[in-house]
């Protein structure tokens, strides 16, 4: 592969980085010792992950960075057998477990682990260049960084700060997720990117605290984005630009929508705007993307595994193909569509819709729901009635379980 280094990579070196209560810059972040290459750097906090990225940007060493919790023992052994030294980084201390295979490094290679929502995490090869998808000059911003280190979404925010001037970062550690609006308000965060689950949880916990964050840019991604969450954020932040992004480790950031509506215009399908832009198409009901931001070996059309539905002049992404379609006695319904109906109920803060094995019809639609406590008690009968007025019989969730709080994984997703 090419060893060409992006000359703009460290333009953001003087940008502010707030992590673990300390305010530094990329330049003054603690330094890691010279890392072996290739190295899998496993971290427990955002500052160590950023230090690993800066090391990569300066030295061009082959790097995979991930949280310790995402890399279990067998994955660690797999990485060691693939030539990675395993580095456990903890501030100024670190330990190195040598690779079990000696091989030539791929200079400049940055590896990502897929989220593993469809199975075991797999490695996708990128470079700092392919991960830097925002290249046009941005207005000065301070970005929230709530994502788990090493994920594609995390790299997206990190590369903006590393490669552009005046793009500060405020790192949110997992232990700070419940109170992030307080930290964000204190440090003047003006741009934040999170999954719909992340935004729903934040609104559910303390919408008032959220409104004190001076957000000008709100971004959603990583999960299907429904109209209800876009509308709720618009109500809270009438002046902010609200965008949703379709991005994955495999095809990179491929769809960016700023018009405040769920889905993207049908007119965007099969539109060829040159090599710099992705081409979106639909085969059957699967989204297919040919992207310039793809991972190594994934050039050409990539079947995303995501299911789409056409609604008016929009293309909605409803969920994963293998789990989204529920066959109820021969009638098919999209779990994503049912979820959207549930979440449009004013008293519902979050919902997950899934198939449940049932006699006679094979599968039935079931749901888990978190209600908004401010709007009084809601019963399953209320929700069945709400859905019955908006969905065919077979699409109405027949078993609804109420959860006390919105579940969330390290990836900020909730398996919807």
């Amino acid at each position, binding site marked *: 592969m090419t060893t060409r280094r992006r000359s703009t990579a460290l333009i953001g070196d003087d940008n502010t980085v707030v992590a673990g209560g300390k305010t530094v810059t990329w330049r003054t972040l603690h330094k890691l010792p010279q890392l072996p290459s290739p190295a899998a750097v496993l971290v427990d906090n955002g500052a160590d992950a950023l230090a690993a990225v800066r090391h990569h940007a300066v030295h061009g060493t082959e790097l995979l960075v991930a949280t310790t919790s995402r890399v279990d023992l067998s994955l660690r052994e797999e990485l060691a057998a693939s030539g990675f030294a395993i580095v456990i980084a903890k501030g100024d201390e670190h330990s190195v477990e040598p690779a079990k295979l000696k091989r030539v490094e791929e200079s400049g290679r940055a590896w990502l682990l897929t989220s593993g929502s469809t199975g075991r995490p797999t490695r996708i090869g990128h470079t700092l260049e392919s991960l830097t998808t925002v290249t046009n000059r941005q207005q000065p911003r301070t970005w929230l960084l709530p994502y788990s280190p090493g994920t594609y979404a995390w790299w997206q925010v990190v590369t903006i700060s590393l490669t552009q001037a005046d793009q500060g970062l405020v790192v949110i550690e997992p232990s700070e997720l419940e109170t992030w609006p307080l930290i964000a308000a204190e440090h003047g965060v003006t741009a934040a990117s999170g999954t719909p689950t992340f935004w729903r949880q934040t609104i559910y916990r303390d919408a008032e605290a959220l409104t004190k964050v001076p957000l000008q840019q709100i971004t959603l991604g990583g999960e299907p984005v429904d109209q209800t969450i876009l509308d709720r954020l618009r109500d809270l932040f009438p002046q902010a630009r609200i965008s949703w992004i379709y991005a994955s480790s495999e095809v990179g950031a491929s769809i960016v929508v700023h018009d405040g509506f769920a889905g993207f215009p049908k007119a965007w399908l099969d539109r060829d705007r040159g090599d710099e832009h992705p081409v979106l198409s639909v085969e059957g009901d699967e989204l297919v993307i040919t992207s310039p931001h793809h991972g190594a070996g994934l050039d050409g059309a990539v079947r995303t595994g995501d299911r789409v539905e056409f609604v008016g002049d929009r293309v909605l992404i409803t969920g994963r193909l293998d789990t989204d379609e529920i066959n*109820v006695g021969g009638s098919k319904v999209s779990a994503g569509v049912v979820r959207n109906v549930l979440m449009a109920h004013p008293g519902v803060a979050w919902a997950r819709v899934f198939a*449940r094995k049932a*006699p*006679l*019809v094979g599968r*039935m639609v079931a749901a888990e729901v978190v209600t908004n406590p401010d709007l009084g008690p809601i019963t399953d*009968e209320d929700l*069945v009635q709400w859905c*019955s007025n908006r969905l065919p019989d077979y699409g109405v969730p027949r078993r609804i379980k109420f959860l006390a709080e919105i579940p969330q994984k390290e990836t900020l997703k909730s398996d919807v």
Partner: protein
Amino acid sequence: MAELTREQIRDLMGAVMKAQGKTLPGDDSADLREIGFRSLDFSELALRVEDELGDELNFDAPGLRQIAKVGDVLDFIEQLQSA
């Protein structure tokens, strides 16, 4: 596995109908088609029973039979529990 009584099963059947805005008549000989109890409702009842029992019912065990009346549903679920 603990079993539900016929009365408990009837209560669950009533809850299924209530969620649909309907009422379960007290008479076991009531015709399912006439009261609007459909296959989706039967399936939901089975799930409610499973949730109460904390265990899956084995639908393969008893042979298929005609289920036309309220009493047939109750008999069938009772039989499933002991299968």
